């Protein structure tokens, strides 16, 4: 594993939706090492434990990473108050990202809520060979749909209440897509019930699937073992660690 830790400037900040923030951080070495699906571990002034945040986009030429996160508690609330020009203590890139298939292969990205941001970085690898299916609670919570179009990936928007895009869950849109055409890989990030539904469909249509998990973390590098998740290893249940063995796992290896 190879990662760095240091203080890097926040160069741009946007509020994308209620409680959703968009940070661009300049960290050349980190951006050079980063792969879609990996995460960074941020230190927030006033809090002891770092906060793991998935990487949304990587711009190696500009030497920047983009992070889109949701305020979940006091730590992420304090994180959201950091302003452009200030430094952020970042450790990363950490963990295992999504498999990036060779050019010409097709993939479907499925994201739910704050699980959507890491799918953007993966989508940009596939460009027009990817299709994104993203779901949100309602129109006010919708983020990043234009960004998928910017990287060349068509985007199917679903909302739970039908206030934007398709009325319904991402799994319904995924089923329709899989009926039409089966990709080489499905990549998904979102709440556990969504992941379960995606994995069931992937199995039904015989498409390989990778899912990104989250858990409360300590060290972020696999030393402290707090971020356990249930997986299967050699036919037996094994508590793997989201930070080092994941966050991205083969769908067949996880027990949700």
């Amino acid at each position, binding site marked *: *594993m*190879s*990662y760095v*830790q240091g203080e890097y400037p926040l160069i741009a900040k946007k509020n994308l939706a209620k409680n959703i923030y968009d940070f661009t951080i300049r960290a050349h070495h980190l951006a050079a090492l980063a792969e879609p699906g990996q995460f960074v571990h941020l*230190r927030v002034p006033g*809090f*002891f*434990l*770092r906060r793991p945040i998935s990487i949304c986009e990587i711009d190696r030429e500009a030497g920047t990473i983009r992070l889109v996160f949701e305020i979940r508690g006091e*730590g992420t609330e304090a994180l959201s108050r950091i302003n452009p020009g200030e430094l952020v203590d970042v*450790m990363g890139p950490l963990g295992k990202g999504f498999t990036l298939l060779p050019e010409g292969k097709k993939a479907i990205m499925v994201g739910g809520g704050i699980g959507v941001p890491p799918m953007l970085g993966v989508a940009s690898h596939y460009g027009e060979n990817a299709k994104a299916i993203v779901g949100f609670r309602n129109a006010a919570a919708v983020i990043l749909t234009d960004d998928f179009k910017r990287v060349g990936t068509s985007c199917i928007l679903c909302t739970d209440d039908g206030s934007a895009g398709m009325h319904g869950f991402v799994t319904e849109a995924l089923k329709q897509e899989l009926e039409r055409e089966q990709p080489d890989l499905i990549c998904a990030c979102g709440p556990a019930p969504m992941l379960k539904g995606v994995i069931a469909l992937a199995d039904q249509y015989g498409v390989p699937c990778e899912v990104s998990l989250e*858990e*409360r*973390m*300590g*060290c*972020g*590098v*696999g*030393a*402290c*073992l*707090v*971020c*356990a*998740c249930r997986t299967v290893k050699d036919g037996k*249940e*094994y*508590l793997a660690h989201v930070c*080092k063995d994941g966050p991205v796992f083969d769908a067949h290896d996880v027990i949700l």
Partner: protein
Amino acid sequence: MADLQVKVAGVTFKNPVIPASGAYGFGREYECLYPLSELGGISCKGTTLNGQNGNPAPRVAETPAGMLNSVGLQNAGIDHFIEAELPYLEKQDLVVIANVAGHTIEDCVEIARRLEPTSTDMIELNISCPNVKQGGAAFGTSCQAAEEITAAVRRATTKPLMVKLSPNVTSITDIAKAVEAAGADAVSLINTLLGMRIDINTRRPILKNNVGGLSGPAVFPVAVRMVWQVANAVNIPVVGMGGIATAKDAIEMMMAGASAIQMGAAIFADPYAPVKVVRGMNEWCDAHGVARIADLTGSVQPW
């Protein structure tokens, strides 16, 4: 440049800084930041006889100036340690301390026997894990149980034997005296303090285990007090830990009576913390005319 070398139970450490068991794995996760040889030693992840998965997640919760954990000694077993981790650590030029955490006295004795022919420099017998149902702190909260398990492991090993003590007791000095009488060469303290946090919206504990061990700067003054009391109660060396995050903390802990120090939770906040502490201790010694860091041990002048 001060002389940073310290000796604990006949084992020489090039400096007094040791990542604590459970906080640093077997060191591999940090080798891309700095060579492990910059550290005095490593106390390896607690190892049981056959390996175990530990407790369900969530296993960590933020607290004011610290954290709770309820990992529950997840590890791959003693044979895996000997075959897969020890060969790597042997090459790193630092003191290797194996942390032994059996569920029964017989387990601990067997683990010590398997470590006997290996290159492990020292054994740290963990009688203080708050997160396991069998063994763990059950051995460390009664003088008789602490004495029995220490004596049994003592008979099974010729390696320097350090016993890691629990702070969740009425009198830690009595436990320290009991393990000293049973043949321990050193004691290390403190393990975590049992704590709990509740999510008031769900009315559920944050930890799936309900309770867990508190560590981080929040526990530092408790640790300093206990190290000071134990160092004054026994004649064997004390390795101090509990909330050390800076070189100043480490120096304070040594003044309280520690011959060396361990660091845990601080590494999660700053992975460079142990090497910063080594450098900072050296600078402090130079600035204060301390030629040998070992001279700091127990140098507090109590009122």
